[in-house]
């Protein structure tokens, strides 16, 4: 039986790695992947606590988070493709105007 605290520690570490990715990388795609990883680490903590309290509610919340993440990825990647068509770059330093 693995203690719940180990899962929470792993989740915190993965979240911190995701934060470093969002803050340091400048390829918009990799920033996006880091955001996905942060969502995943939060999901891991939720599932760990669902197991701790022997309740399915945490897992259902994770189910909803995964649904929203899938929708978010579709819209975000469509936005990236549109921005790339207009600006020919995925470098977030170059994307600094609001008009297309």
């Amino acid at each position: 039986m693995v203690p719940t605290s180990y899962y929470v520690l792993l989740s915190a570490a993965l979240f911190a790695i995701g934060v470093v990715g969002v803050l340091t990388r400048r390829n918009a795609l990799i920033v996006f992947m880091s955001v996905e990883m942060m969502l995943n680490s939060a999901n891991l903590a939720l599932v760990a606590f669902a197991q701790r309290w022997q309740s399915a509610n945490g897992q259902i919340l994770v189910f909803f988070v995964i649904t929203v993440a899938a929708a978010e990825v579709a819209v975000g990647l469509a936005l990236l493709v549109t921005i790339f068509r207009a600006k020919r770059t995925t470098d977030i330093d170059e994307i600094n105007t609001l008009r297309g």
Partner: protein
Amino acid sequence: MELVVFTITALVALVGAVAMLLSKNAVHSALFMLLNFSSIAVLYLLLRAPFLFAVQLIVYAGAIIVLFLFVVMLLGAERAEDDRDRIAWQRPLAILMAALLLGEALYVFFARANTSLASPATPTEDFATPVKIGEALFSTYLLPFEITSVILLAALVGVVVLHQHRQAAES
């Protein structure tokens, strides 16, 4: 035994995450992220969440990674970004901030470590079988479940609108 599986899977997840962060090629990043997502799926299995294990593999490791790989290859964004920074102090500051965040999380974790972080007293195998999750989704959580369908529809319409707008601008 379970602890051994957890340790190995956790190490794979961490290595996948760090490698995703460090690799220059965006395709490699996407594949390392696949490694990370798959090991998290294994952890779900260890946490007695078979339904989420399947959903994680299908939605994250399947659909989302394919979408990422497709866009990376479509945009030709796999080439390395140039290393010079617009703002010189940005990168060290970012790493410092992330370290502070992790330190804060660890502080709260160890300061508040109490019974809520221990293992359950009487662990059972079947507290979240797919059957139970389905029953909860279609009874207690029926309204949020229906709302997710609206979210998915909105995402679908949004993507189509973005594409239409681009075509109109090009013609």
